[in-house]
Every structure is written in C-alpha cells, then in structure tokens.
C-alpha cells in the first residue's frame, strides 16, 4: 500500500500469519513450540538439528513480531537464548570462552525436547489405560448394614491449607484500617499550613512545618512530609505561597507569597 513494500505481507504470508495466531495460543510455552517445529525435520529427536531448530524458532518469532503478535515473555527469553546458542554453534570454539560449549547447550536442549516428548507420550498412555468409572467399575451398591449414629467429620488437605491461609492472611488486611494513625492526609497538612503560613515571610524547609509528634517515627515522618508537600503545591496553586528547590534532591523551601 505505502512505501514500505518489503513489509507488506502477501496473501500467503497473511494466511500463514493467521495460522500462526491460532498456533501461538495453542502452544504450551516455547519448549512445546520447539517440539512442534522439530517435527517438521522428520527425524528422530535424538538426531534433530538444534541449529536448524533455533533458526526456525527465530524465524517464527520474527514473523510474529512483524505481524505484531504479542508474544509472552518466555518466548522472547527463549529466542534470546537460542540466538546466543546459534552464535556459539556457528563460531569456531573460543578456547578462552567461559561456560559450556555450544554443543553442550544444544545437547541439553535436545534432552529437554526428548524428555518433554516422552512425558507427553506417557501422559497419553496413562490416559488410555482402563480407567475407574469408565472402563472399570467399583461396587455399585455399597452396603449399609448397621447404621451407627456416629458422624465422621471430613476435611481435605485443601480445606486445611486454605483454612490456614485464611487465618494468616487476615492480618494482612488489618493495616488498611489500623495504619490511619500513621498516615497524615493532605487535608490535615493543609489545615495546619494555612494556620501558620501567614507568619512565614522567610524561606524555610517544609520539614520545619511537620508537627512535632510526626518527627520521630520514620514512616510517620515520611507520610507527614508527603502530605505537607502536597499541601504546599495546593497552596502554591492558590497563589498563597512560593516554593523553591536549589537543585535536585535539595531541601524544598516555602514562604508566604505577598499579594500585590
């Protein structure tokens, strides 16, 4: 359409892209994608060319990027790692180089792929077994002979864990209510500043305006400082005070603004 002809996808590319979009959602992570790509090599996983695979993967990510498909971070991490691996595999081995060789890294990746494939097959075999309630059945009519009036209370491990978490996380909510005592609101600071600013003819650090009892504890001081600063901005906006700061991170100073 426009000048960037090289980037305009052809119909075919677009179709491939649509397939890709579907696929990205279907893959369970980068390892799964690599496994799928490796099938196109049609060789035993033990003989798979990791270099070719790395290139296929990088091409995939590149296409996805061109098509502005958002890839999850782990796909990009894998791409970075594969690019690194590719460079290691292509460059002549550097005797000075630290860490494992490209071959070692490639061998481990091949192992991971083979292992994932094996687990996938194992899962398939497991699910194909005769299963209780589908192919194999338990006694249909369990027998009540004598009804004992006792009650068995039941609880599962999840109940237990959730109960504990419930108890322990209750505390985590309390601060929302209780810590008001350590928070100064901007309204409080405003009231306070309005009351005293009339006397402030000379420049003074805003820290000088913090109430006595808010000095000691660090978190109270931090809160009071923030509130007082916010209140100062408000008063400056109203044209009642002036604010200055010598340089970044220097103390912030305020004084009364005398009206013309």
């Amino acid at each position, binding site marked *: 359409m426009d000048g960037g002809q090289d980037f305009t996808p052809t119909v075919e590319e677009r179709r491939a892209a649509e397939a890709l979009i579907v696929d990205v959602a279907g893959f369970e992570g980068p390892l799964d994608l690599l496994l799928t790509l490796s099938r196109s090599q049609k060789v035993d996983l033990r003989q798979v060319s990791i270099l070719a695979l790395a290139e296929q993967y990088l091409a995939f990510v590149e296409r996805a990027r061109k098509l502005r498909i958002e890839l999850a971070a782990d796909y990009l991490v894998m791409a970075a790692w594969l690019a690194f691996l590719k460079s290691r595999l292509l460059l002549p081995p550097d005797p000075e180089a630290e860490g494992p060789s490209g071959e070692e890294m490639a061998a481990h990746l091949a192992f991971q792929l083979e292992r994932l494939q094996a687990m996938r097959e194992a899962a398939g075999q497991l699910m194909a077994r005769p299963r209780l309630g589908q192919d194999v059945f338990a006694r249909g*009519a369990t027998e009540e*002979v*004598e009804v004992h009036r006792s*009650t*068995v209370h039941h609880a599962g491990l999840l109940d237990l864990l959730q109960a504990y*978490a419930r108890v322990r996380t209750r505390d*985590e909510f309390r601060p929302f209510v209780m810590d008001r005592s*350590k928070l100064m609101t901007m309204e409080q600071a405003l009231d306070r500043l309005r009351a005293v600013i009339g006397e402030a003819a000379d420049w003074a650090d805003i820290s000088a305006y913090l109430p006595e009892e808010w000095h000691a504890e660090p978190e109270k001081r931090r809160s009071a400082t923030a509130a007082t600063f916010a209140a100062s901005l408000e008063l400056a906006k109203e044209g009642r005070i002036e604010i200055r700061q010598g340089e970044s991170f220097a103390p912030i100073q305020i004084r009364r603004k005398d009206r013309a």
Partner: protein
Amino acid sequence: MTEAPQQSQFDAPPLAEAERMVEAMLFASAEPLSRSDMEKRLPEGTDIDAALAALRTRYEGRGVTLTRAGEAWAFRTAPDLGHLLQRHAVETRRLSRAATETLAIIAYHQPVTRAEIEEIRGVSVSRGTIDQLVDMGWVRLGRRKMTPGRPATFVVTGDFLDHFGLESPRDLPGLKELRASGLLENRPPPGFGEGGDEPEGESQESLFEG
C-alpha cells in the same frame, strides 16, 4: 468394544463368559438388576438363567452371596459378616470452619497452647472445638510448655497425617509456597503479604519499609 450388542445368536457367549458378564454387571450396579435389565445389555442369546444359577452356586457359602429379591438379583454380603461392615454406615459431615482453622493452626504451629491458638485465630477457641479434634483422633495433648502456668500444648497425631496424606507436619507448605503452587485462591490484594510466611505476626511496619 462398541460392536458388542450386534452379535447374533451364533456369537452368544459360552456359559463361562456369560457368568463373568453377569457377575460384573451385578457387582457394578447400584440397584438390583432384573432379568430384563440384564438382557438389554448382554449379547443376544446369552443364557442368563444358566449364568445366574452358576454364579449362585459359585458364591454359596462365600463372604458375598448372590441373592434374589423378587424379580431382581443382587450381590449381598453374607448376613453373618454384617458386623464387619459397620464402619461404612457412618455419615460423613464436613468439618466446621472453626475446627478446620484450629486444626490447621495446631498442625502448623505445634506444639501450641490454647492461648496461642486464640492469638493466631484472633478469636477464642471453644473447648468443644479442641475436644472434637481430640475425639476424632487428629489432635492429642503434647508436652506441657515450660512457661508460667505450664500450659498444656496440642499436637497432631499419626492419624491426622494418614488422613491428610502427609508424611510429616514439616511437609505442610508455607504461605508463600501455597500461593506459588496455585493451591490457594489469591486472596490478598496484589503487592501485599509477600512476606507473610513467618509464624510471628508481622507488624504493619513492613508495609512501609523500603
């Protein structure tokens, strides 16, 4: 397997096979089965009567017998062995929330005194709750604490571990771990409670640090 009921007379199963089939059907059924119930599912031509007769003989004098109730058939345990089955007749009920929480606290903090349980739960623990857990065999008294008053402590039992499929109370996951394993719905708001793993109550200060 799906082709089964298409078999014609010629494929009618031999008696031994018919017996196996009837045996499995009666075993798995929640209700007694009538001849016609069985007929519908068995290959055509199956000699149900012969199979039933053979089964009845086979189970004679065993711990389980084939009994007939009106037109229907069912396996029943031998009447003289009823006393062995009592445990199956008890009703199960979900443990109350208070009891589950108390149990969880004992498991995570044992040996723990009653006062400590109350402190952690933030509410008083009724005598009945701990009694119930002791009755169930999940909690027992531990060593007395060497603090003033020498209060009794509570610990969990081997039965508790059995029931919850744990090898040791030390295998219980911590809070952070619970969340990380996805074993919990994520209840605290994001950003809070990252440090909520220690038994000691972390104070509100931690929210303001850093």
